């Protein structure tokens, strides 16, 4: 079946502009995760959705970052007034997470490479 898809695969934007990154999870997966992978920084957890709700938004780096998920499926991560330090690969993952959250195997998408110039 289809895996997790993300769009765009690459995004170059000017500093100060807003960007939207999209994630389509695997059909039937209730949990969705956003991570950021910066050069030399490993994987940084940003936010997690169980259905449409996000119980914990503390991982978002600043109030310029927001995320939403509608219909329990597609999620968008929005970065407002982008800064150069936002340049990274943004990874989305989904899991079945029926009462088990992150303990379920997470399936990752290919990521969106964001470059802020």
């Amino acid at each position, binding site marked *: 079946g289809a895996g997790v898809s993300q769009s765009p695969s690459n995004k170059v934007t000017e500093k100060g502009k807003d960007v939207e990154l999209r994630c389509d999870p695997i059909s039937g997966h209730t949990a969705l995760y956003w991570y950021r992978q910066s050069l030399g920084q490993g994987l940084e957890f940003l936010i997690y959705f169980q259905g449409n709700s996000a119980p914990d938004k503390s991982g978002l780096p600043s109030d310029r970052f927001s995320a939403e998920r509608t219909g329990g499926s597609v999620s968008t991560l929005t970065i407002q007034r982008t800064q150069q330090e936002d340049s990274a690969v943004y990874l989305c993952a989904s899991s079945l997470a029926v009462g088990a959250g992150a*303990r379920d195997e997470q399936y990752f998408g290919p990521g969106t490479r964001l470059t802020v110039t």
Partner: protein
Amino acid sequence: AQKVTQAQTEISVVEKEDVTLDCVYETRDTTYYLFWYKQPPSGELVFLIRRNSFDEQNEISGRYSWNFQKSTSSFNFTITASQVVDSAVYFCALSDWSRDDKIIFGKGTRLHILP
């Protein structure tokens, strides 16, 4: 606090050699899960294994094996008879039972298998 340490930033071995990737974790929870993920040059993370804290049995899957030792808070990963296709970045990760919404990843070990 949760923490995962992968002390080896980069390792290079010649094909067919065995190689062990180290992972040390910290957690206050008595119930937790440990993971290994592989990130090949294509960039997509691939799940390799998940172990819970109650199961300390070592696991072998083909050329891959994992050594979980609670006494030293380690979950090391060994590739036997390495192949060039094993070249990737490998991430160790931890998920606490009490925080079922997130995984904490180590910074990864970049493995180069030289032909």
